[in-house]
């Protein structure tokens, strides 16, 4: 485990060495931003609306008591969406979508000697392949999480309208009640950390792939599993440190 950790840290160090030519790397960053950001928008929109709606319905169901104001369902939905559902569930989905794509892309490049070709040309392969993905990850995943939060809360509102579990007005009142800005900070920190973990862990797994197609698949699976576990661990750490 310590050997792997050491190799991971050394790979990250190599990834952030001074680029040979900034403009070429910048183009790569833009390409990765489109791939991670735009490419993941659809799935993030769908899961966010559904999770927001389901969270609101379930909270309203569990707090069906004359002693509890109905608007509290809105507050609880808001906090759980911003603190947990949007960043963490999105990150777990993105680990599958973005992480497996990164690990398999880099792994395929390794087994088809494309990485060797880069090294022969004198290109710093980790810098060219991994750094743009990490930069794109830590910039686009927070944006996706912001969209997820907005859509999650909208999903809750739609659930109120459609199911009538609580009145939409009460839901909106609940959203505004007792808002503590720290939850936005926690959400932002989590999303940046998740962006880094997903891209770097999957890139590491892809970069050290050895063998053929079977091993590329194994690297992708391993990358997704490790990044999911690390996302959950980081969730615990950030929550316990910041809340």
């Amino acid at each position, binding site marked *: 485990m310590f050997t792997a950790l050491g190799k991971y840290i050394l790979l990250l160090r190599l990834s952030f060495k001074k680029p*040979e*030519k900034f403009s*070429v790397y910048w183009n790569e960053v833009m390409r990765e931003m489109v791939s991670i950001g735009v490419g993941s928008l659809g799935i993030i929109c769908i899961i966010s609306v559904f999770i927001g709606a389901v969270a609101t319905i379930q909270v309203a169901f569990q707090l069906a008591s004359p002693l509890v104001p109905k608007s509290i369902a809105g507050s609880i939905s808001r906090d759980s969406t911003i603190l947990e559902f949007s960043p963490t569930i999105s990150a777990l989905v993105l680990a599958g979508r973005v992480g497996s794509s990164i690990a398999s892309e880099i792994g*395929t*490049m390794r087994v*088809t*000697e*494309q990485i*060797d*070709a880069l*090294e*022969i*040309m*004198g*290109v*710093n392969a980790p810098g060219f392949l991994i750094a743009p993905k990490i930069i794109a990850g830590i910039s686009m995943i927070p944006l996706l999480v912001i969209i997820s939060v907005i859509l999650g809360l909208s999903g809750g509102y739609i659930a109120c309208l459609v199911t009538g579990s609580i009145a939409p007005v009460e839901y909106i009142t609940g959203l505004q009640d007792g808002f503590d800005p720290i939850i936005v900070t926690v959400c932002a920190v989590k999303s940046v950390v998740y962006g880094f973990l997903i891209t770097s862990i999957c890139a590491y797994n892809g970069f050290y792939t050895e063998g053929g197609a079977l091993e590329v698949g194994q690297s992708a699976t391993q990358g997704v599993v490790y990044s999911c576990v690390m996302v959950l661990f980081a969730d615990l750490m950030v929550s316990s440190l910041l809340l």
Partner: protein
Amino acid sequence: MIEIKDIFKTFGENEVLKGISAQFKPGKNNLIIGGSGSGKTTLLKCIVGLHEPTKGTVSFDGQEFTSMNFTERVPIRKEIGMLFQNSALFDSMTVEENIMFGLNLFTDQSRSEKLDRANFCLDRVNLKDRNKLYPSELSGGMKKRVGIARAIAMQPKYLFVDEPNSGLDPKTSILIDELIKELTEEYNITTVVVTHDMNSVMGIGDHILFLHQGQKWWEGTNKEIAHTDNKELNDFVFASKFMQAAKEKL
């Protein structure tokens, strides 16, 4: 000139290369031949720095390459072109972008200059007007030719070729060999080709290194190979009936 001295390479307990020394001269097609597992590709990878030799040195025109770090190697690497066994073209880039890749990173040429160079290289390998195709849209032979075009785009002093004929039909295989020979002579490149294709050996082998069990077993030219009494080399080169018949005519 490339000079390798006493190269050893060990993977765990397995000693793949056992003290190989040789010189590869400019303007010559230097062939490394040998059976499967003889250490040909490992030797090539040690020369270009993809593997670090366990012992021994590699020098490019007197500059010792093996003791250099990554940054120190960059100027030499800019002078190296390499064609990989499976061409190793970048899948996400078009043919043109593949060829211009090194130029984009290491030169300050304008886009039109780089395009001109890419078109020249494509023309040189008889692949005009294929600029916008992706590697997945090319045949095996075309991929090899694009690989060669990419390798020569930076006007290399050293060209390394790993199994240029693998997976190709005999006709395309000969075309690739002829192309490598022409480029080597035209630009006075030091070319090192790893192959087990006997047509290549007889057709372009100006200088041949035969490896057997990780050792240099024989060294000479394609003219000398027909008259050698080296048993392992004879067994390897003249294994097929076709080659035996050809030897009898020589």
